[in-house]
């Protein structure tokens, strides 16, 4: 957003002043802007990466957990992507619990006891979440049953087309022949 506003205001300058000067100014500004943007990016990355681990496996578990746990304050980001205060605290807690040797299940239970199903991007399978997990499957089954019913009825109608014996067929041909003439 910032960058768009920035560049358009410089473009309007170029219409008034000498072209070469403002384009030079523009490129100068963009270099500064991108430098700042990159600095900010690496800064945000650093917020996630300042935890020290003993093993690669611990680090991977930390990444997986902070990717799958949802920030309770800003409900559409995970812990990894959130700069919210509570997300920062929860990352720290996840790190602490991993270093204390707690299993993923224990850490997830810790989060569940405090923040409930909302903390998980993949809610646990419980009585309250049954509909959430299997609702789509139920709808699929209802759809499949309806589709099957329609197909079976259509086939029944096909099969129930009258079977004519030899005499009846002759009669039919006569009738059709009469109509033709």
């Amino acid at each position, binding site marked *: 957003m910032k960058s768009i506003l920035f560049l358009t205001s410089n473009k309007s300058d170029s219409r008034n002043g000498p072209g070469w000067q403002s384009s030079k100014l523009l490129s100068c500004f963009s270099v500064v802007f991108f430098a700042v943007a990159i600095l900010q990016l690496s800064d945000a990355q650093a917020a996630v990466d300042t935890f020290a681990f003993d093993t690669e496996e611990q680090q991977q578990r930390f990444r997986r957990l902070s990717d799958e746990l949802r920030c309770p*304050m800003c409900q559409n980001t995970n812990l990894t992507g959130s700069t919210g205060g*509570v997300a920062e*605290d929860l990352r*720290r*807690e996840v790190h602490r619990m991993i270093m204390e040797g707690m299993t993923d299940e224990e850490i997830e239970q810790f989060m*569940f006891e*405090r*923040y*409930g199903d909302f903390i998980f991007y993949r809610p646990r399978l419980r009585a309250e979440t049954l509909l959430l997990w299997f609702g789509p499957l139920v709808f699929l089954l209802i759809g499949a049953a309806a589709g099957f019913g329609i197909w079976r009825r259509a086939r029944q109608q096909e099969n129930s087309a009258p079977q004519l014996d030899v005499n009846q067929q002759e009669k039919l041909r006569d009738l059709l022949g009469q109509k033709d003439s």
Partner: protein
Amino acid sequence: MSKLKFYIPVIGFFALAILLWRGLYLEQGELPSMLIDKPMPQFVMSTVEGAPVTNADLPDEMFLLNVWGSYCLPCLVEHPTLMRLSEEGTIPVVGVNYRDRQDLAIDWLDDNGDPFAFSILDEDGRFGIDLGVYGAPETYLVDGDGVIRYRHVSVLDEVIWENEFLPAIAELRAEPAN
């Protein structure tokens, strides 16, 4: 019979449409608290003024637990209500100074007035996690046994006090004592 069969999907469609339509307008900010009907988390901490404080220091009667911070603008909005409740002796208010700095918290209380019996100093937000807090302000209603009975997220003004807290308190008072 066949007419009824024709209407089943239509009725189903409208039922689903109404359900999803309502879902669009649900209050999204407020997550249900996991701590309702659970005891207050154990704590051995310090007050904003630096005195040691534990669960034993909590009021024996029903009280409000208000999560606040000096950085929190909505906390200033609800501040007059908390001041009134505390000054009129309606209900004791205990504070949780959440993710704040001690000196800023003390300044804030000096500048605006201190409605709290005491404020638990939770600089790193660790106690907030045990409470399931996700941002100031939040207010919990805790009964005399130290059990959390109600939570309100965001500003507790006079309207919320009238419409949410008074009925909740009346309901708890009406419960037979065990």
